[in-house]
């Protein structure tokens, strides 16, 4: 089937920053994203797990955006602004998408 090049950006970030991030992304013209839950993890600031949390401050989520290549830089800059001082990982992968008319 006919597919189209695009980029898949995954931003792992504290749940409490999610709204700020997606608002910023929308400001930067991103029109679609999905939020995935993260159950736990480990990084420079140690290990954590959602079951051991009592506070909405401590969980993390993944914000996944499928985006045309030409809009990638705008997205990354917007995201970086939010992620900068906060813990979080940003990755970019090449993907093919069906139905590019949707992006």
């Amino acid at each position, binding site marked *: 089937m006919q597919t189209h090049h695009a980029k898949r950006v995954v931003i792992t970030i504290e749940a*409490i920053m999610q709204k700020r991030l997606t608002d910023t992304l929308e400001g930067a013209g991103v029109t679609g994203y999905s939020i995935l839950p993260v159950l736990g993890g480990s990084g420079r*600031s140690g290990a*954590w*797990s959602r*079951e*051991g949390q009592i*506070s*909405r*401050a401590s969980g993390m989520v993944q914000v996944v955006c499928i985006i045309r290549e030409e809009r990638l830089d705008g997205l990354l800059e917007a995201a970086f602004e939010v992620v900068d*001082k906060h813990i979080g990982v940003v990755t970019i992968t090449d993907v093919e998408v069906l139905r590019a008319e949707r992006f």
Partner: protein
Amino acid sequence: MADILDLAATNLLSPVILSFVLGLAAALGRSDLSVPEAAAKALSIYLLFAIGFKGGAAVAANGLDGTLVATLVAGFVLSAILPFIAFLLLQVLTNLSRVDAAAVAGHYGSISIVTFVAASSVLEGRAISSEGYMVAVAAVMEAPAILSALWLVSTGGSGRRMDSELMREILLNGSIVLLVGSFFIGAITGDDGLEAISSFIVAPFTGVLCLFLLDMGLVAGRGLRESRGVLNMGAVAFGIAMPIIGSFIGLGAALIVGLSPGGVALLMVLSASASYIAVPAAMRVALPEANPSVYLTLSLGVTFPFNLTIGIPLYVAVSQAVTGG
């Protein structure tokens, strides 16, 4: 003194505290016992709804006395001022960075609603009545401490931290809204309302509190296990000294305002307790460079268990002694 020990023993051997101890032990022993996140949140919604509603219904039954406004103001001032005292004490006892110390200080000005609930249920068990509006005071004390903490940081030169969005989030966080909202529902529907739902919010309350504290024990235990080494002796000393100091400042305020013996005890508890929900959330947004292990371990791993086991009976006994109640 014998009274305090007696009260402490009764408290320590209640199902509520033993459930907390069970959770703590299970987590420290690395059992895989855990309460699902959604269930823990549901339990806390239940507790907030019940405690708020009962407070409101009590106000409807007894009417408002003149001390309401004075107590609200006292709560506000306590919450705003306690962080400064905590900050000073931290600089004496620990070598935390300015940002970390300010973040911790903010937690100790604010309150722990679960500690408040546990204290209420101790008072109830001893048939000591208190002002129903103390839950509203609890709600008022959540936020001011956060502003004081940010002020402590910004005088250290780090610029603006607070935006209106964060302000809104703090003031309208779920716990405050639910507590205040159910307080008003209780106040509006009064005795009729209470009767309609008392077999839901009164009868099973202590049992639900047990399961909730089981989970709190698990969380506190896991926190302690994972952050071993984060706190030195000075920090632990702070985690025990600060609630006692706070409680005595709260005592002073309560006496000035003129609360009932139960109300005095509750204001002491509020002043002594440290937040581990609202304030950590605000700190992750406003002070991301502060280390969450430090403030969470102190508040949840040291001060919360201290208050639950020793603090509450102590504060109740002191308030009884001082007010002769």
